[in-house]
């Protein structure tokens, strides 16, 4: 079977700086794929290229058989790749419920006229969206705070809400940008379990960009390590942990 996400020789230059050089990735369907690297390795740049925020200087990206390297972020989300952000980006002036309902927008079948006139289709769909959003919130244990302002939640809950919101777009691929950032070890362990559970429950493919080695080692099946925008290793967690190049990149060579 063809991989869900395939990156071929992608290079991203900012002026003279090549943040990502000749990167290749193959993310199989159903995989839990980790992309790691030390600070400034180009992880977030890769993420932004994959989600359409940046257009790569060279190379091709195919997602589910479609070339997406020239597509805009919203088009990529429509194709079925949803993301979260390293620095949480919830809709601040909306409630928890509205945040999730908003993400359901791209699956809406009603047209503007339905909403303006207030047709039966509009009301039925709004009720359905609300229902689905509440179900998602229940899964993440957030249904009790559905009416709260999204930014009033504690940090860990905001992270979970962001994942719930991404899932509301009904993705095939979930891209998580440093989901464990700012979490304590206890929260990180819970998050790892949650991520694995989401993959199994929603039958998704998950691509994780992470700085925290522990998180990645604990759950990912394939790990790719980059440094200075280039791949330095790829393999199972055990292989990565034993790889001298990885150790050098993280701890510094002698």
């Amino acid at each position, binding site marked *: 079977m063809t991989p869900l996400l395939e990156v071929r020789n992608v290079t991203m230059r900012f002026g003279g700086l090549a943040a990502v050089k000749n990167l290749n990735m193959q993310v199989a369907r159903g995989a839990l794929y980790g992309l790691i690297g030390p600070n400034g390795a180009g992880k977030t740049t890769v993420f932004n290229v994959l989600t359409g925020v940046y257009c790569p200087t060279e190379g091709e990206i195919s997602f589910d058989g479609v070339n997406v390297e020239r597509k*805009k972020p*919203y088009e990529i989300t429509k194709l079925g790749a949803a993301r979260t952000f390293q620095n949480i980006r*919830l*809709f601040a002036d909306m409630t928890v*419920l509205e945040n999730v309902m*908003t993400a359901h*927008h*791209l699956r809406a079948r009603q047209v503007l006229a339905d909403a303006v006139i207030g047709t039966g289709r509009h009301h039925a769909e*709004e009720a359905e969206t609300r229902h689905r959003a509440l179900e998602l919130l229940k899964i993440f244990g957030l249904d009790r705070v559905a009416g709260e302002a999204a930014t009033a939640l504690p940090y860990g809950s905001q992270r979970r809400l962001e994942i719930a919101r991404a899932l509301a777009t009904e993705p095939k691929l979930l891209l998580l940008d440093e989901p464990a950032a700012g979490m304590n070890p206890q929260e990180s362990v819970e998050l790892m379990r949650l991520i694995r559970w989401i993959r199994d429950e929603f039958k998704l493919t998950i691509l994780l960009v992470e700085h925290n080695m522990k998180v990645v080692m604990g759950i990912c099946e394939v790990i790719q390590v980059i440094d200075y925008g280039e791949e330095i290793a790829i393999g199972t967690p055990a292989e990565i942990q034993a790889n001298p190049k990885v150790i050098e990149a993280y701890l510094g060579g002698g």
Partner: protein
Amino acid sequence: MSPARKVVVIAATLVALIALNYIFEYGFGDFYINPYYARIINLIGINITLAVSLNLINGMAGQFSIGHAGFMAVGGYTATYLTVYHGKQIAETFGRTVTDPVGSSIVMIPSLIAGALAAAAAGLLVGIPSLRLKGDYLAIVTLGFSEIIRVIILNIPAVGGATGFTDAIPITNFFWIFLMAILTIVITRNIATSTFGRALFAIRSDEIAAEAMGIDTTRYKVMAFVISAALAGVAGGLSGQLFANPLNPQNLNFVRSIEVIVMIVLGGIGSITGAVVGATTLTILPEALRSFDQQFPGLRMVIYALLLILLMIFRPQGLMGRRELNLRWLLRRQKKDGSVLA
């Protein structure tokens, strides 16, 4: 609302408006409305349409446009042009004259539709290239656009040029003004409480996150811009054909745009009822302060400005904030999920 109930509500609204319109024009027994008050009430209606429509783009979508007077001018001149040059013809087709009550309403319909369409087209024309811009840049483009419109109108003799469209026939009445104000409120409210409204609020809140959620931000900004422009065009069509208030390019400059912005900021940007409250307050306030001018000419506007400054200092979120005033809120019964828009 069930369809049957909807029909009843619409019919009741129309009957109430027609009855009020009758009282406005012919009085009720010995009771006559002071024409000065009548004029203020009509202006309130027009300003509500303007403020609520501007709120769609500035408040809900969070895009700062200062060219609302431009769309109002496009709609106003188009609507008035149609009435002046083709109104007679249209009314005669139905065996009426432009000035009789039924005939004027028959003319009003195509006139307002033409105004709305012309303004919408202008909105699309400005919106597509400029809504890729953000913040200050968008503000400058919209300002530039409305000034261009004004200068173009100044140079068209068929619509009166600098002297204003003095040929305009006063066919606007209470009925049409408030029908359009209610329609504007209903349309924007229905958008706000729908998935399209949430898309706009998402854009206002965080454009990058909105894109990541699959929202085509440019498309929705243009959509909001076009609807907002069309409704401003309707307001232009109404005010252009209001008695003793001919269209004049001088009255449609950027000061008029700023006035509408002040209305929505004062009312609480993003709130529809806030826009209504803001439009009403700012239409009445300068009139209510008129007595000050008798002692000290010019004092009125000083007090007016002072009140605005004080209000912004002590209530920066506007009179309503982002809340909506509704019966449920008045009864202090909030919905379980606390949805702000419900």
